[in-house]
C-alpha cells in the first residue's frame, strides 16, 4: 500500500495535503480498502467553519458507512463534485482524483499534531 511521504495523516485514516493555508483532505488507501466499493460521498458542510474532529461528511460503501472527521480546524471551501458521478475514484485513486474536500486552515499550530507517513504506517501496522 502507498502512503506518500509528502502528505500528513490522521488516526481516522485521512490524508491531508498542506499548501500554505489550504489543506486538501481525502481518505487513505488503507481506508478505502477497508470500506470496499465506495458508492456515495455525502458532504454538506461546504462553507462551514468547523473544529478539529467535527464530522464534515460521510462516505458510503456498499456494505458500510463511515463518518469523515475534519483533521484541522477551519472552513470547508470546496467539495470534489466529480465524486457525485464517480465515487469509485476514492477506491481507484485515493490520493489523486479521489480527494474529498479543500479547506482553509484556521490554526497552523494544529498541523504539528498530524501524523507523518511513518507514524501512520506504524498506526496501521504496516
Amino acid at each position, binding site marked *: 500500500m502507498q502512503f506518500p511521504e509528502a502528505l500528513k495523516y490522521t488516526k481516522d485514516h485521512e490524508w491531508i495535503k498542506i499548501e500554505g493555508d489550504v489543506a486538501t483532505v481525502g481518505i487513505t488507501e488503507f481506508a478505502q480498502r477497508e470500506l*470496499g466499493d465506495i458508492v456515495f460521498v455525502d458532504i454538506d458542510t461546504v462553507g462551514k467553519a468547523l473544529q478539529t474532529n467535527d464530522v464534515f461528511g460521510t462516505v458510503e460503501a456498499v*456494505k458500510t458507512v463511515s463518518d469523515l472527521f475534519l483533521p484541522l480546524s477551519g472552513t470547508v471551501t470546496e467539495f470534489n463534485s466529480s465524486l457525485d458521478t464517480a465515487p469509485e475514484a476514492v*477506491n481507484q485513486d485515493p490520493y489523486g482524483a479521489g480527494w474529498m474536500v479543500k479547506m482553509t486552515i484556521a490554526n497552523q499550530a494544529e498541523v504539528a499534531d498530524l501524523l507523518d507517513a511513518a507514524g501512520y504506517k506504524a498506526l496501521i501496522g504496516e
Partner: protein
Amino acid sequence: MKNTPFTAIHLALGAKMAEFAGYNMPISYSGINEEHHTVRNNAGVFDVSHMGEFILRGDKALDLIQRVTSNDASKLSNGKAQYSCLPNTTGGIVDDLLVYCIEENKVYLLVVNASNIEKDWNWISSYNTEGVEMENISDRTGLLAVQGPNAVKYMQELTDMDITNLKYYTFAKGTFAGVENVIVSATGYTGSGGVEIYFDDKDGAGEKIWNEIFRVGAPHGLKPIGLAARDTLRLEKGFCLYGNDINDSTSPLEAGLGWITKFTKEFTNSEYLAAQKANGVSRKLIGFEMVDKGIPRHDYTIVDANNKAIGVVTSGTQAPSLGKAIGMAYVAKEHAAEGSEIFVQVRDKALKAVVVKIPFA
C-alpha cells in the same frame, strides 16, 4: 473463532476476512461489485460451510418436522427440498431453514443459519417427544455454493450425476469431483441459479472439491465470492436474511412468507398465525428504492411526509446490478402499497424513497 475447511485457502487468496457467526469467513476477494457481477453474469463460488446441518432420522422424523416448521414437509419426496421457517410461540421466527428429504418418512436434512445452530437445536429438541434420532453434523459438513447462470454447466463436468436437469429445489446425491456421498442441490441465495454442494469434511475432501471446481471453472472466469456480495445478491432478489429482515419478533406473514406458512397442518403457534392471517397484519415487509441520494441501512427509521415514524429499515444497500440504492423495511400497512412515498431517516435528513415490488432485480 472456528475455521471452515477453506479458511486457509481464503487467506492464501488474500481475502478480506471477518468473524461471522463465530467463523472466520471471507467477506470479499477482489471487491464487492466485481464479485456481484461475476455471479450475475457468469459463476462464482461461496464458502458457506458455516451453515448448520441437522439430520433427523426415524419413523417420527416427519411428524417432528411438521410440528416445528411452517411449510408442509409432507409434500416432499426423495430428492426434494423446501424453504421453511421455525415459528416461535410469541408470533416471531426462531430461524428460517431448508428441509431436504433424503428418504421419505425416514431421513431428513435441515439446513439452518450459522448464528442459530444452538438455538435451533435446542428448539427442535424441545419438541422431540417421540424419540426422533437427531444428529448435529454442522462441524463435519462442508458447503460450497456455486452460483450464477453458468455454474451448473461448469459443475456438470465434475460428476456423472445429471445436475444439468436438476429442477429448482431438488437435489442429487453421489460422487462429485471424485468425492463420494456429496449432495448437489439446485438451491442458492443469489437468484442467479446454480447449485449448493454438501460434503463430509474428511480426508481433504474440501480442498479436493475446491481445486476441482476452480480447475474446470477458472478458465471460464469462475471466481471466489465473499459474504458481502452474497448479501447484495440476495437483497436484490428480496430474499430475507435472518437477523435483519426476520427475527424472533417478526411474523412470517408480516415478512411476506405466507407462501411457506401452510395452515393445512398444525405447527408451533399455527392458531395464532391463522388468526393473524384472517385479521390481516398491521405492518408488512416491503421493498423500496431511494429517490433522493443516500444509502439505507439496517435499523434506520422510516417516516412519513409529516416526519412521523412508520417503520424501520431491515436491509439496505447500493444494488450493484441496478445502480441504485434499495432496501427492505417493515412499514405500517397503510404505507405498504407499491408506489407509496416514504422517507428514510439517514442521519439528520429524511430522504425520499418509494415502495416497489420485490424482487428488485
